């Protein structure tokens, strides 16, 4: 499963690898070659170091055999078979070069070039053009066909996409773009229009790229062997001169990329073929939306102020550290040790997160540290730890290739985890069955060449009733995996759970009235999940962000144990993490009750270990969680907060409550790359560094630790870990790391599941899935193989406790919130890129019935109010919604989506209930009072910032 990592192997072998285990021996150009059965002659030759000329073949796509350049001679066979489509056979004797082959190839290339512009010197692909390379390889010296006859040299360009240009005059019709869109991305947005001489690549039904089904993933651009599809940055800046392999800082998929560089400038981002999370694919965010890193809004100097209505003062790093540290110490002297805390960033590296929690525990002297995982996946940590013993997903992404039944619950992978979404769709096209559990009609439900078997369109907030009905059905119909339960699970716990779940109140017939899922449909889905082979559950924030989020995660784990779906590829419980390093920030001890490695602060032996390493004594009681910090701030006992790379003012629920909390702090230290919404309440602004500007590691949703490598120097001079170290020093707690690798060494020393992790090991293996230790020196792609981390799997009863947030006469609709493909989280990064071309504002989606009842037309301004607040958005009337349910995103601060959401939260972890808010919607003509205040504060704070920058 784990291959060795060597950047020099980044060669195109022409056709994909064969997975066969039986080997074939053949002779190519006199060399004996041994390859797996099913390998193409082209790939066999490439593995032997012989590069057969090719144009339409590339090893990320199935062979196609259209370009006729890769012809070879095979002894005993007539003609000149294409090496890309000819599989090897035992004893085959292949010649890849001969005068006859060369002549044929020359003729083919001559025909290509007869209808191709000869502007190579000024072409964007100059230096990286496969057509040019092949012309060189075959030695074409003359083109006998003049350009006076018909040709395609004057076809107009399509520049509708902000990131790439389509220039059909350079197209050789190899179909690599069409096939990449189909095989790699699964969108099927491209085709060949017409035929013969009139053939032309067409997006959609002869539409522009922007108007077509294209999702701008860029797979076509990467696959194009010529300049027909080129990144605009490459057209503008030219070809890169070196590259840096690093990890994307957007979602939890954690794609591996080659940052193609010219000096300190990123020219383009190319997904790294050997990246095990993404296998050479990317999405519109990771591939294209990197321009924010050099956006003019970047904060480049430390700034301080005494009060938030004052202009910022630009100061040196030292002065900023001293100012922040003295404020924190004053506050602690006045209000007590526990009056200060910090929030670690799930966008920063493991090393940086580790340092912030270390700073809190060692220098602040308390456990008041939390992370944004609190507001997304904290119930995952709770539920999986209680049932299985480890707060993490059980599989790697490759596992999906062995899955027969996919159940997606409360996740929208094609928008929020697009690269995994593509891998999932690929598996569905191969015939895996699909169950979608979601109140909305998500795009995954139906795509080219597959369709979901079941869409269980439940009412928001009724997940637990649904999962109980699934388990009840499996038990009542005798579909449970008795052997697995007997061997792997705690029997007493199972018996208690069994008597709970057997009660008829959990039957699908009884829960139908709660969930809205027809009992027959649910029973059919339960049978499919239990009997369909390898069944895997993928879930997202639609599971966790509820008042019963932890219960639902527990229910999911119960269901997978009940059916024996653990411990092998193709099965398991897979949380799709929101941000790039949510898994990592949790692993690193960002929760207020846990030290790194999920060990409770009350455990004296663990505390002792850290006390010795850190040379301090540690608090033995849990600290405040984020929502508790807000409550304590309003109550007056929490006075200072250090917030790294997290925009709580925009992302956390009940904005006005958050604003009140931030407004009552005496010292707010914000470390960020932009003046985000939270920074408008800050007293100290410490410039952050983007992922391109630092070294470290991220851990993705499959527990994969992957290197983040510095591609350019930090704009403000410091990587984020250095900033935390500077602040610690000013607080009188010295940290002496010279490089993040030293931080990782400390983590490995103190955390059993990271024991075998080091930068040297990461360089060697490419990436590592924890646990990585003596038992698993190469990491652990699939967890709980022979036994659960907890020992015996623990079934836990999951009573459905409805949320208090219910519709009534005043608030008759349910609002649920989510994400969209082109934007990321609070949008601070993606809003500062051309991705706004797809999603320039957040809109309220509502069902035509609800719209008509209120006289709302598409595009109208609609006021949405809940018991927490009111905001105004533009309406999008969409039958994707079910009647009575409305939906929006929170990517733009002015939208105020979280002005509406309430402070209801998960019973076990305080994860906010973003997914269920009772609201009313009505047509309005002006923005809300909150939005007016927001506008005022926003322009005022921007003015304070620009005044300070003018001074500097």
């Amino acid at each position, binding site marked *: 499963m784990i291959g060795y990592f060597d950047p020099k192997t980044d060669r195109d072998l022409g056709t994909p690898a064969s997975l066969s285990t039986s080997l074939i021996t053949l002779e190519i150009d006199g060399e004996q070659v041994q390859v797996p059965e099913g390998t193409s002659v082209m790939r066999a030759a490439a593995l032997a170091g012989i590069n057969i000329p090719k144009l339409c073949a590339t090893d990320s796509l199935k062979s196609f055999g259209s370009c006729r350049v890769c012809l070879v001679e095979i002894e005993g066979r007539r003609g000149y078979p294409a090496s890309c489509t000819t599989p090897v056979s035992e004893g085959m004797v292949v010649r890849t070069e001969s005068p006859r082959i060369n002549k044929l190839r020359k003729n083919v290339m001559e025909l290509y070039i007869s209808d191709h512009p000869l502007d190579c010197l000024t072409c964007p692909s100059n230096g990286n053009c496969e057509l040019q390379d092949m012309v060189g390889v075959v030695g074409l010296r003359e083109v006998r066909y003049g350009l006076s006859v018909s040709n395609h040299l004057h076809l107009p360009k399509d520049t509708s996409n902000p990131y790439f240009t389509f220039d059909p005059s350079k197209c050789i019709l190899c179909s690599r773009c069409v096939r990449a869109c189909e095989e790699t991305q699964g969108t099927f947005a491209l085709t060949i229009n017409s035929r013969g001489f009139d053939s032309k690549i067409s997006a959609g039904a002869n539409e522009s790229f922007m108007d077509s089904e294209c999702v701008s993933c860029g797979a076509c651009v990467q696959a194009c062997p010529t300049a027909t599809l080129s990144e605009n940055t490459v057209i503008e800046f030219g070809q890169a001169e070196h590259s840096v392999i690093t990890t994307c800082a957007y979602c939890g998929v954690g794609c591996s990329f080659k940052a193609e560089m010219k000096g300190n400038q990123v020219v383009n981002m190319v997904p790294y073929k050997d990246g095990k999370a993404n296998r050479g694919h990317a999405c519109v965010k990771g591939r294209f939306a990197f321009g924010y890193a050099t956006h003019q809004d970047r904060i480049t100097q430390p700034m301080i102020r005494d009060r938030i209505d004052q202009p910022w003062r630009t100061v040196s790093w030292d002065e900023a550290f001293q100012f922040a540290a003295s404020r924190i110490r004053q506050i602690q002297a006045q209000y007590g040790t*526990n009056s200060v805390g910090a929030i670690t960033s799930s966008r920063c590296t493991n090393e940086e997160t580790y340092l912030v929690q270390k700073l809190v525990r060692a220098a602040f002297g308390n456990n008041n540290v939390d992370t944004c995982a609190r507001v997304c996946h904290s119930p995952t940590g709770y539920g999986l730890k209680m049932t299985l013993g480890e707060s993490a997903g059980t599989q790697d992404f490759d596992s999906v290739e062995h899955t027969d039944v996919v159940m997606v619950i409360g996740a929208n992978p094609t928008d929020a985890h697009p690269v995994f979404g593509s891998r999932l769709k690929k598996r569905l096209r191969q015939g895996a069955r699909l169950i979608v559990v979601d109140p909305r009609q998500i795009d995954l439900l139906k795509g080219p060449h597959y369709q979901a078997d079941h869409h269980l369109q439940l009412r928001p907030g009724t997940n637990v009733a649904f999962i109980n009905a699934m388990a009840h059905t499996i038990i009542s119909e005798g579909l449970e995996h008795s052997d697995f339960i007997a061997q792997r699970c705690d029997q007493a716990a199972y018996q208690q759970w069994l008597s*709970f779940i057997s009660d008829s109140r959990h039957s699908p017939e009884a829960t139908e009235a709660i969930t809205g899922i027809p009992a027959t449909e649910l029973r059919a889905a339960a049978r499919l999940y239990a009997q369909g082979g390898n069944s895997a559950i993928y879930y997202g924030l639609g599971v966790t962000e509820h008042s019963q989020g932890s219960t639902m995660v527990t229910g999911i784990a119960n269901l997978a144990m009940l059916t024996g779906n653990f411990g092998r590829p193709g099965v398991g419980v897979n949380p799709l993490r929101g941000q790039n390093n949510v898994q990592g920030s949790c692993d690193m001890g960002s929760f207020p009750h846990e030290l790194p490695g999920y060990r409770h602060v009350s455990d004296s032996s663990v505390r002792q270990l850290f006390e010795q390493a850190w040379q301090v004594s540690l608090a033995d009681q849990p600290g405040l969680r984020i929502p*508790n910090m807000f409550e304590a701030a309003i109550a007056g*006992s929490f006075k200072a907060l250090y917030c790294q790379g997290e925009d709580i003012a925009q992302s956390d629920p009940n904005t006005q409550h958050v604003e009140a909390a931030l407004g009552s702090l005496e010292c707010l230290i914000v470390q960020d790359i932009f003046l985000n919404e939270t920074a408008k309440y800050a007293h100290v602004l410490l410039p952050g560094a983007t992922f391109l500007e630092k070294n470290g590691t991220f851990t993705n949703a499959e527990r994969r630790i992957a290197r983040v490598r510095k591609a350019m120097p930090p704009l403000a001079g410091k990587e984020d870990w250095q900033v935390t170290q500077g602040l610690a020093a000013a607080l009188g707690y010295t940290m002496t790391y010279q490089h993040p690798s030293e931080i990782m060494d400390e983590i490995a020393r103190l955390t059993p599941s990271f024991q075998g992790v080091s930068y040297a090991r990461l360089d060697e293996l490419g990436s590592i899935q924890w646990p990585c230790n003596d038992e698993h020196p190469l990491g652990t792609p699939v967890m709980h193989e022979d036994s659960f981390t907890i020992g015996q799997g623990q079934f836990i009863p999951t*009573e459905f*406790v409805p949320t208090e947030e219910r519709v009534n006469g005043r608030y008759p609709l349910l609002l649920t919130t989510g994400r969209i493909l082109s934007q990321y989280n609070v949008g601070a990064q993606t809003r500062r890129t051309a991705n706004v071309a797809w999603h320039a504002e957040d809109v309220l989606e509502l069902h035509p019935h609800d719209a008509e009842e209120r006289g709302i037309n598409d595009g109208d301004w609609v006021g949405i109010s809940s018991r927490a607040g009111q905001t105004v958005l533009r309406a999008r009337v969409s039958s994707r919604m079910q009647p009575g349910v409305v939906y929006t995103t929170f990517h733009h601060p002015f939208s105020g989506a979280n002005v509406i959401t309430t402070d209801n939260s998960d019973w076990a972890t305080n994860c906010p209930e973003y997914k269920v808010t009772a609201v009313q919607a009505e047509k309005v003509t002006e923005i809300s009072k909150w939005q007016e205040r927001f506008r005022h504060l926003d322009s005022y704070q921007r003015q304070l910032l620009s005044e300070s920058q003018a001074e500097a």
Partner: protein
Amino acid sequence: MNAEYLIKMANQIALNLAYEQDPERRADMVAGHIRKFWEPRMIEALLAVDPAHPDLSPCVVAVLTRL
């Protein structure tokens, strides 16, 4: 800290552990959960609530003596 906020959270924990039918064991579980996840000032503020407070669920009243 705001008592209403803490009462609501404590009641919610009790409600979600209601599958445990033995009231003593259930109160132990709720108390255990609170000790595991609550910061001391939150526990102190909950303990400061009058056990006769009308919003406290009976289970949480039993929890107060266990914290």
